[in-house]
């Protein structure tokens, strides 16, 4: 199977190379002029077919590795290193991406699979862009396949005179369902971003940046955005339930690497609306897409080259330079292309007023980019400081919070302003009419929160702004419904709602995403600002009161399995005031024999109101008392709920119509001739 996997990889690599060349031949004017247009089409077709070949061969290669894991083929170095015989099946699958080599192969697989799905809709490709787009996509695939094939090949044989009887096993921390899901989800997001990128570059080469381009790029960016959002959130959820420190986000380089492309993609999804409506910001949008793609490559580089210290121990490998060269090529290409195509990228319009949707979108973009630069600066600070001063310095979590919390609050404010302000210019009168209710609503809520005893300035601001934005969402939805009701007599409320939704589907889905953001924001703010954290020791039948709970230790037992020994506590949770039982929780402390590692198994009671989070720290010296760490995280569940709503809204946007509601902006632009002709 090793040879088969390797062979498939090599085939994919060759197919990608052919795809690059045939794409160039298919798009080039020289070929078209010298021979017949049919020849160009054939080349484009060849590029398309090689794309599908890459998909098939990469898939086979991944299957070969998976087969190796299932049959415990320890003649393969990688499989030996990341699995052993007693692992449950699901973790045999997740062990595929448990290490660097396999994770890079998984990356290639998702990249190729996305490309394969894209290739199915080839009839809708804008004709001129298609060959160049294919070529850029192949180039990206070619780069990752080269890495996997030459530098991080997961099909290497073990360097041992005999085949070992059992493997090394997977890190127990990674043996968690969410750890099995979240990296693939993130990779899906990362690799899907390559598609809008390829369209961008293709459109630039072909000098076509019309409506078709926007339609396709926007839809694929939305898809990538949904995966990224879910992937980032699942990663946070994994950290929350598994790591036992009561939080979900630590601004670790690996987390930041996933956040950065999300920021630029989100910025693009907003500013592309300005391009749709006003044909402005074309260059800006192209850079946002290319930057998103570059940041996914940068993230891979960051987490695998060992240039910054991360909680995830990525050893310093020699693949760093290859990444830098590739990023340099992409960046330079985009620079040359945007400069040489500046005529077609020039905007026919200008922003007319500071009180306009255009400005609001622009500010939104600047904030997203500021968060990006702040985060980037923090991540790269050890490298920069060493280069500049010779003294290595680093920043921690407080730095990221100090920068990003105020920026995020400004963003919240803009989130309220953006949807209500009108295009081109807004009169002060209409501003007052739109914002009076939301402002008052936000202020009252802010005062209420203050009165309830919340002291943190950023928390009060955050709640108040969240309510302000909620107010704008309500106002705007109500207005749309009222217009609908007045448009025809005698409609039932239900009719009004469904008709309004149909008419403004895209807008409504956008609002839904924003609603998700608001709910998540409340969850983040509350769990950060009002976290309760206690540490105590309890003997059997002793109790302690925390918040509204009384925690009583029933007993601590030891358990012994083949894999680990553990301390297992039974904690009774009661209502503090009347001692009615709430639930029983069983925090555990495990000691894995094989690699003498200790891990905590958090006991968690989830609820919409708050999460009760118990960690067993250990026994004291004479083994009469057990020490616990308890967190109460208010409204923690709202974060996950909010993200789920965001993803749902985003799915509606992907599946929904591409028309901008009501007036429909781009009817004036003729759709380009589409399709790769067979």
């Amino acid at each position: 199977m090793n040879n088969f996997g390797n062979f498939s990889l090599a085939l994919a690599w060759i197919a990608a190379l052919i795809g690059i060349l045939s794409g160039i031949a298919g798009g080039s004017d020289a070929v078209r002029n010298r021979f017949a247009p049919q020849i160009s089409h054939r080349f484009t077709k060849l590029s398309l077919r090689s794309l599908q070949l890459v998909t098939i061969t990469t898939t086979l290669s991944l299957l070969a590795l998976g087969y190796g894991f299932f049959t415990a083929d320890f003649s393969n170095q990688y499989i030996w290193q990341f699995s052993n015989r007693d692992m449950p099946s699901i973790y045999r699958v997740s062990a595929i991406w448990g290490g660097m080599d396999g994770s890079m192969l998984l990356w290639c697989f998702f990249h190729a699979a996305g490309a394969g799905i894209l290739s199915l809709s080839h009839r809708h490709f804008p004709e001129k862009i298609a060959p160049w787009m294919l070529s850029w996509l192949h180039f990206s695939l070619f780069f990752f396949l080269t890495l996997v094939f030459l530098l991080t090949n997961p099909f290497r044989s073990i360097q041992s005179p005999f085949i070992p009887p059992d493997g090394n096993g997977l890190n127990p921390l990674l043996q968690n369902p969410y750890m099995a899901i979240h990296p693939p989800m993130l990779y899906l997001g990362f690799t899907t971003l390559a598609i809008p990128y390829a369209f961008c570059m293709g459109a630039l080469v072909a000098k076509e940046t019309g409506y078709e381009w926007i339609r396709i790029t926007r839809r694929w960016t939305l898809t990538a955005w949904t995966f990224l959002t879910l992937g980032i959130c699942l990663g946070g959820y994994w950290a929350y339930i598994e790591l036992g420190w009561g939080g979900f986000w630590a601004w670790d380089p690996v987390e930041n690497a996933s956040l950065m492309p999300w920021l630029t993609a989100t910025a693009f999804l907003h500013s592309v609306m300005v391009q749709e409506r006003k044909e402005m910001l074309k260059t800006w949008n192209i850079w946002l897409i290319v930057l998103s793609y570059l940041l996914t490559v940068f993230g891979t580089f960051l987490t695998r080259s060992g240039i910054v210290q991360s909680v995830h121990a990525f050893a310093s490998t020699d693949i760093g330079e290859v990444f830098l060269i590739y990023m340099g090529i992409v960046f330079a290409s985009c620079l040359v292309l945007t400069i040489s195509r500046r005529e077609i990228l020039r905007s026919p319009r200008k922003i007319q007023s500071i009180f306009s949707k255009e400005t609001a979108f622009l500010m939104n973009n600047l904030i997203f980019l500021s968060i990006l630069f702040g985060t980037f600066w923090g991540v790269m600070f050890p490298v920069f400081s060493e280069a500049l001063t010779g003294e290595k310095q680093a920043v921690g979590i407080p730095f990221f919070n100090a920068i990003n919390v105020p920026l995020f609050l400004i963003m919240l404010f803009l989130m309220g302003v953006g949807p209500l302000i009108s295009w081109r210019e807004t009169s002060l009168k209409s501003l007052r009419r739109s914002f009076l209710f939301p402002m008052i609503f936000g202020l009252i809520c802010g005062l209420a929160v203050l009165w309830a005893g919340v002291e943190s300035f950023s928390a009060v601001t955050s709640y108040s702004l969240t309510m302000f934005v909620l107010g704008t969402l309500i106002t705007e939805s109500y207005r749309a419904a009222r217009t609908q009701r007045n448009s025809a007599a005698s409609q039932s409320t239900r009719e009004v709602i469904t008709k309004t939704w149909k008419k403004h589907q895209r807008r409504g889905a956008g609002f839904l995403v924003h609603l998700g953001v608001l709910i998540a924001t409340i969850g983040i703010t509350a769990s950060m600002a009002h976290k309760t954290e206690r540490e105590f020791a309890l003997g059997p039948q002793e109790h302690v009161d925390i918040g509204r709970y009384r925690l009583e230790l029933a007993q601590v037992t030891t358990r012994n399995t083949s894999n680990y020994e553990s301390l297992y506590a039974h904690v009774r949770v009661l209502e503090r005031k009347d001692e009615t039982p709430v639930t029983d929780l069983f925090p555990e402390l495990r000691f894995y024999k094989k690699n003498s590692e200790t891990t905590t198994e958090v006991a968690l009671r989830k609820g919409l109101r708050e999460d009760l989070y118990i960690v067993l720290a250990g026994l004291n010296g004479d083994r009469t008392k057990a020490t616990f760490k308890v967190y109460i995280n208010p409204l923690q569940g709202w974060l996950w709920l909010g993200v789920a709503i965001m993803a749902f809204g985003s799915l509606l946007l992907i599946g929904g119509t591409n028309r901008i509601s009501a007036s429909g902006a781009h009817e004036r632009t003729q759709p380009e001739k589409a399709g790769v002709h067979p």
Partner: protein
Amino acid sequence: MSRVFIVLIILFFGGGTILVVQAMKTNTARVFTPSELAAKAESFHVPRARVVGMVAPEKLIYETEPTIKLSFQIRDPEGTAEERIAVHYDKLMPDMFAPGRSVIIDGAFRDGTLYATHLMTQCPSKYEPPTPTKTDAAPASTESNIS
């Protein structure tokens, strides 16, 4: 348009710079290796330091009574330097913490001791084996598996 645009950009990046500078004033830590710190004089103080080191097996004490207390020594994760520095930490022992593990520590260094405020264990088998090179690692551990 261009004037509005320029003013906005200046405002943002001006504001952003101020924000970054403010955040950096109070939040940067100097990065050391354990042997670098060990070589410093007793009187050497750093209020904020970040140290990456390997947990030494000796002198590792973890108490949970009366308060949680973890003290241990670290040495350079790579190389041959044998110098160690003592670390004190008063929070929960993080998951995967074990002798031989690489840890990232943020804290204050005074009187030859690192008082940790943050202690993170690096996640070892995620991307590379803890041993320096793969090809060396395989046969060595294989033998230990058999015996």
